[in-house]
């Protein structure tokens, strides 16, 4: 979970990928592959699907490296954004309308323990300090959505809250987070 000791230059890596340097892509994969797979696995909840997602993400990073625009955000953010949206797309059609199974719920419920992990909360990322200021239920909405890829209905099921309430919590939480992060 800890950040790597040596900083990895994601931007330079993408520039090299854009020039056709496969070693740069492999360096990126070696450095970030496990974390990307972790993100994809958490959303897809299936090992094989998660590897499919990371496969597609790495290919997309390679073919689109030249289109990465530093003015729009960090290179690392670009890489994670590609991976997360591929993961969200992969589950969007298949899972959103289904009810979470017990096993899924179990996976999701482990989140709460993690969120309470002091090491994480004392991390330098400001988003954690801002999340901490939310009420527990709205906080879980944001985390279930972003980290677990849960839909409104899934979150409502997990929290035992009405769908409309979950939707309102999410809207209000986003607003509060934005104000806190400004």
């Amino acid at each position: 979970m800890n950040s790597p000791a040596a900083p990895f230059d994601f931007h330079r890596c993408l520039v090299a990928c854009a020039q056709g340097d496969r070693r740069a892509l492999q360096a990126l994969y070696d450095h970030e592959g496990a974390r990307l797979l972790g993100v994809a696995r958490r959303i897809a909840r299936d090992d094989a699907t998660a590897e499919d997602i990371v496969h597609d993400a790495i290919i997309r990073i390679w073919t689109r490296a030249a289109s990465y625009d530093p003015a729009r955000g960090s290179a690392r953010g670009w890489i994670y954004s590609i991976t997360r949206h591929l993961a969200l797309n992969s589950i969007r059609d298949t899972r959103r309308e289904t009810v979470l199974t017990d096993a899924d719920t179990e996976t999701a419920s482990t989140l709460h323990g993690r969120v309470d992990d002091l090491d994480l909360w004392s991390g330098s990322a400001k988003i954690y300090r801002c999340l901490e200021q939310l009420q527990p239920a709205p906080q879980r909405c944001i985390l279930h959505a972003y980290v677990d890829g849960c839909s409104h209905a899934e979150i409502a099921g997990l929290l035992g809250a009405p769908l409309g309430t979950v939707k309102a919590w999410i809207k209000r939480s986003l607003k509060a987070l934005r104000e806190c992060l400004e």
Partner: protein
Amino acid sequence: MKPDSAEELDSLAGEYVLGTLSPEQYAAVAERLHTDPALRAAVDAWEARLLELTALSTPQPPSPRLWRRIQRSLDELPAPRTQTRLWQRLGLWQGLSAAGLAASLLLAFILLTTPPSTTEYLVVLVAPNSQAPGWVVQASDSHMIELLPLGQDTVPDGMALQFWTKGEQWRAPVSLGLVKPGEPYRVPLQSLPPLEANQLFELTLEKAGGSPTGLPTGPVKFIGRAVKVI
């Protein structure tokens, strides 16, 4: 989609990044991102705000076969789409084909007026817009080329002309160094594959010291393809 207030736009962007939009809403936002800079900026901001939450997912070492699979997919990719900016611009090639006539006339002139020599390849480099010939490249063997100015060119202060070449099967252009306007320039080609017909040569305007990326970044000033001299 109806126009949104700033607040609605930001909420939409936030839920797009969060992943809680319905499939229909998600697809609509993804489509709209191509044309709506305000929405794009809002999405970019949310991606950055929430990025550190990815640290909550436990890393999972990929199986060894995943990288092998990625490599196979990379091998099967069609010609790279990553070098499109400079080398695949339609206008450039349209200009080049129009320049063909000017180039072949000049080539004929050079061939008729120069004494027989061992020159094997010739390239006339023309300006992409005016098609005015500016430089000639000649190679008397496959390992040394000469770049000869046809006129006195100037470059703005703080800028330089950089000389590039790219064979048809090469993945990316290679720099042959910085060129002084109006002065002949000789380049050994030992480190490159032998010259081939149709090999592309060009001069681009770069910052003094040359392109920082190792690839052409500035405008093309002169461009042409190698012709084998029979």
